[in-house]
C-alpha cells in the first residue's frame, strides 16, 4: 500500500502531459474535468498511503520509496525518492484535498475563458510540483518542486497577460521568489559541505545527523533556509509579491496564494527542524519575523478596498502566525494552523471569487453591499470562513490559533501580546469585509463610488475592464448580482463544513494530529507545559479578542459611529508605503548605481577587451610586411638566424 506514494505526484504529472498533448481538443469543460480527476486520484493515492502508514507501528511510520538514481557526481548522491511520513502525508492530504475542490471550482469559474485548457494544464503542473516539494526525500528534490511552484505561480498570476498589471505582478512574484531561492541554494551547498549529503531520511540523512553540526554552521543553514522560506511564504521583507499576485484568476489566489504554495516555507522549516533546534538564534529570528509579519500584514488588511487584497494581506498575516509557531518550537501547532488555514482561506478566496463573478468582475468592496440576499449560499459559507479566521469557537481557526498563542505565551509574553493584538485586528478586518460585502445598503448601482482623482490614485483597484472577454460575462454586464453555478458552490459548502469541524483534528485533550505527527519530531517534540487554568485563560483571552474585533467593526461599518475613513488611513492602505518606498529606491539610487555600473561596463570592461583586440590587430598589420612571399627572403632569414646562433655558441665557448 505504501508504494502507492509514487502515484501521488505521478497522476497530476500525467494530467499535465495529457493536457499538453490533447488539451485543446478536449476543450471546455472536458479539460477541466480531466485535471480535476487527476488531482482527485492523487488524493485517493494519498489516502491509500496514509492507510498504509497507519497500519504500521508508530515508530516505523517513515517509508522511503526510491524511484531511480538521479545524480551521482563525486560525493554527491541524489536519488529521486519519496519520503512518506506523518508530516509529508498530512501535507499531501490537504494539498490534494483542497486542490481537488479548487480544481472543481475552476471548472465553473474559468468557463468561457479562451485559454481554458492552458489554465488546467498549469494547475496540474502546479499540483505535481507541490507534491514533489512535499514528498521529496532530499533537499534537491524539494528544491525542484520549490522552483516548479515558483514557475507555475508566475504563469498563473500572469495568466491574463493582456493586462499590464497581471504581467507585472507575475514578474514581481518570480523575481521576489528568486531572492528567496538564493538563500535556499546557498543553504543547500552549505548542508552538503557540512554533512556530505542532501537526503533527509535514514541514519546518514541530514535529519539524524543534524546534532553533529557545529552551532555556527547550523545557524547559517537555518537562516539561509529561512530566507528561502520567507520568499516563498511571503514573510517580511519578501512579502511584497503576494498582494500583487491577486491579479491572477481567483482560483489561483485560493490554490497557490492561500492554501498550498505559500505553506511550502512553513513545511520546509518544520521538515528541517532538527537543524533549527541546533541554532537557538535562528528560532528567535523566525519567531520575531513571524510575529512582526503577522502584525504588519494585519494592519495593512484593515484599510484595503479590493476584496482580494484584504484576503492577501490576511494570508500573509496568518503565515506569520505559522512562522511564529515554528519559532517557538510549536511545530505541530504550525502544521495544525496550516491545515485549518488552508480550509478557511481557500473558502474565503473561493467565496470572494464567487462574489466577483456575481457582481460582474467588480472587486472594489465599496461597490458591493447587501449581497447576502442575492447570493445566499456564498454569503453563508463566507460567514463560516469569517468566523473561522476570526477565531470564534468552535470554528477551526480558533483551535489552531489558540494553540499557537499558548505556545507563544510559554516562550515570551511579548510574542503572545503581538499575536493577540493581531488576532483582534484579524477579527476586525474580516468583519469589515463581511459587513461591506454582504450587509449594509446596496452600492453596486452607484455609477462610480469614487471621485475621479481617487480612481486615478488607486489604479490597482480598477475593475478588470481589460479581462479577456469571458463568454457568459458580456451578456449580463451591469445586471443584478446573481448567485454562482452549483459547480462553484459545491466546493464552498465542503470547505465550509471543513472550516467548522477542522478544529477537531487537534482538539485540546484529544490531540489526534499531535499524536500522529509525534514520531516525526521524536526527542525534539515540545509538549506544552502550561497549567490547565492558564490554557483556559489564554483561550478565553483569544476568544474575547476576536469578539472585541468583531464588535469594533460593527460599530464602524454597521452603525457608522465612526467615519470609515478615520480607521483606514492612507498609510495602511498603501501598506506603510513599503511598495512606494521600494519603487522610489529602485527608481532613484538603485537605477543610478545601475547606470554607473553599465557605463563602467561599456567604458572600463569593454574598453579593456576592445583595447587588447586593437593592439593585436595593429601589431599584426605592422608585422605582415615581413611575409613577403619570396623564398629567398625566408632563406636569408634562416641563414641569418643560423649565423646568429653559431655566433652565440662560439662567443659562449670562447668566453
Amino acid at each position, binding site marked *: 500500500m505504501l508504494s502507492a506514494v509514487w502515484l501521488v505526484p505521478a497522476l497530476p504529472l500525467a494530467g499535465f502531459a495529457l493536457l499538453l498533448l490533447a488539451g485543446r481538443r478536449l476543450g471546455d469543460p472536458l479539460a477541466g474535468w480531466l485535471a480535476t480527476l487527476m488531482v482527485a486520484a492523487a488524493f485517493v493515492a494519498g489516502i491509500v498511503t496514509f492507510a498504509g502508514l497507519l497500519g504500521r507501528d508508530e515508530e516505523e511510520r517513515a517509508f522511503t520509496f526510491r524511484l531511480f538514481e538521479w545524480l551521482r557526481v563525486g560525493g554527491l548522491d541524489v536519488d529521486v525518492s519519496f519520503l512518506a511520513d506523518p508530516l509529508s502525508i498530512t501535507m499531501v492530504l490537504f494539498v490534494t484535498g483542497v486542490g481537488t475542490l479548487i480544481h472543481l471550482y475552476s471548472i465553473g469559474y474559468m468557463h468561457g475563458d479562451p485559454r481554458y485548457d492552458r489554465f488546467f494544464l498549469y494547475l496540474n503542473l502546479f499540483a505535481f510540483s507541490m507534491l514533489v516539494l512535499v514528498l521529496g526525500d532530499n533537499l534537491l528534490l524539494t528544491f525542484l518542486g520549490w522552483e516548479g511552484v515558483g514557475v507555475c505561480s508566475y504563469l498563473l498570476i500572469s495568466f491574463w497577460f493582456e493586462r499590464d498589471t497581471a504581467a507585472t505582478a507575475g514578474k514581481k512574484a518570480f523575481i521576489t521568489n528568486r531572492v528567496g531561492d538564493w538563500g535556499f541554494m546557498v543553504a543547500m551547498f552549505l548542508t552538503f559541505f557540512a554533512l556530505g549529503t542532501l537526503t533527509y531520511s535514514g541514519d546518514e540523512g541530514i535529519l539524524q545527523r543534524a546534532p553533529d553540526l557545529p552551532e555556527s554552521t547550523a545557524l547559517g543553514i537555518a537562516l539561509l533556509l529561512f530566507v528561502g522560506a520567507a520568499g516563498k511564504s511571503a514573510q517580511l521583507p519578501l512579502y511584497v509579491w503576494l498582494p500583487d499576485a491577486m491579479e491572477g484568476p481567483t482560483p489561483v489566489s485560493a490554490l497557490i496564494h492561500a492554501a498550498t504554495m505559500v505553506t511550502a516555507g512553513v513545511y520546509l522549516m518544520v521538515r528541517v527542524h532538527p537543524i533549527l533546534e541546533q541554532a537557538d538564534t535562528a528560532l528567535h529570528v523566525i519567531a520575531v519575523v513571524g510575529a512582526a509579519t503577522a502584525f504588519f500584514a494585519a494592519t495593512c488588511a484593515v484599510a484595503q478596498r479590493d476584496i482580494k487584497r484584504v484576503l492577501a494581506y490576511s494570508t500573509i498575516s496568518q503565515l506569520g502566525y505559522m512562522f511564529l509557531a515554528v519559532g517557538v518550537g510549536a511545530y505541530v501547532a504550525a502544521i495544525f494552523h496550516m491545515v485549518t488555514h488552508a480550509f478557511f482561506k481557500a473558502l474565503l478566496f473561493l467565496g470572494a471569487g464567487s462574489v466577483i463573478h456575481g457582481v460582474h468582475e467588480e472587486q472594489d468592496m465599496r461597490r458591493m453591499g447587501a449581497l447576502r440576499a442575492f447570493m445566499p449560499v456564498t454569503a453563508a459559507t463566507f460567514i463560516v470562513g469569517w468566523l473561522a479566521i476570526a477565531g470564534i469557537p468552535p470554528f477551526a481557526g480558533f483551535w489552531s490559533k489558540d494553540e499557537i498563542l499558548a505556545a507563544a505565551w510559554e516562550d515570551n509574553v511579548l510574542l503572545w501580546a503581538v499575536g493577540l493584538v493581531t488576532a483582534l485586528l484579524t477579527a476586525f478586518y474580516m468583519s469589515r469585509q463581511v459587513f461591506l460585502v454582504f450587509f449594509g445598503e446596496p452600492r453596486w448601482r452607484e455609477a462610480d463610488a469614487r471621485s475621479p482623482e481617487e480612481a486615478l490614485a488607486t489604479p490597482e483597484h480598477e475593475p478588470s475592464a481589460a479581462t479577456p472577454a469571458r463568454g457568459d460575462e458580456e451578456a449580463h454586464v451591469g445586471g443584478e448580482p446573481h448567485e454562482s453555478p452549483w459547480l462553484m458552490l459545491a466546493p464552498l459548502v465542503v470547505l465550509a463544513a471543513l472550516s467548522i469541524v477542522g478544529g477537531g483534528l487537534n482538539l485540546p485533550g484529544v490531540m489526534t494530529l499531535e499524536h500522529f505527527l509525534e514520531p516525526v519530531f521524536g526527542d525534539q517534540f515540545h509538549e506544552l507545559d502550561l497549567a490547565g487554568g492558564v490554557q483556559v485563560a489564554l483561550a478565553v483571552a483569544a476568544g474575547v479578542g476576536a469578539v472585541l474585533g468583531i464588535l469594533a467593526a460593527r460599530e464602524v461599518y454597521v452603525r457608522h459611529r465612526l467615519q470609515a475613513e478615520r480607521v483606514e488611513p492612507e498609510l495602511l492602505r498603501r501598506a506603510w508605503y513599503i511598495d512606494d518606498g521600494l519603487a522610489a529606491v529602485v527608481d532613484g539610487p538603485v537605477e543610478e548605481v545601475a547606470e554607473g555600473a553599465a557605463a563602467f561596463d561599456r567604458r572600463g570592461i569593454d574598453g579593456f577587451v576592445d583595447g587588447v583586440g586593437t593592439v593585436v590587430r595593429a601589431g599584426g598589420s605592422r*608585422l*605582415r*610586411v*615581413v*611575409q*613577403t*612571399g*619570396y*623564398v*629567398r627572403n625566408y*632563406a*636569408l632569414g634562416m*641563414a641569418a638566424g643560423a649565423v646568429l646562433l653559431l655566433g652565440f655558441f662560439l662567443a659562449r665557448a670562447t668566453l
Partner: protein
Amino acid sequence: MTVDDTWYLILGAVLFTIGGAGLLVRRNPLVMFMCVELMLNAVNLTFVTFARTLDDVGGQVVVFFVLVVAAAEVVVGLGIIVSILRRRPGATADDVSLLRG
C-alpha cells in the same frame, strides 16, 4: 695512407657554404632545390666523419634518417616544382609569391 679527418670536415663546410650561397643567390627553383640537397649531404659527410673519429655509430644512424627524410622531401618538392613549371614555364622562385602577407 689515411686522410686526415680535418679535410673531410673542410670539404663538408665548403659544400655546405656552396649550397647555402646557391640557395640565396639563384632564382631557378630546380637549382635551389639542388643546393638544398648539397647542404644536406654536406652535413651527412660531417656526421660520418665524426662517427668515425669518435668511434660512435650514432652519427651514421643519423645519416640514414637524413637520407630517408631527404628522399621523401625530394618526392614532394619535385612534384610541386614540376607542376608549377608545367603551368608557368620558366618561372623563377620570385614569381611564386602568392602567400605574402
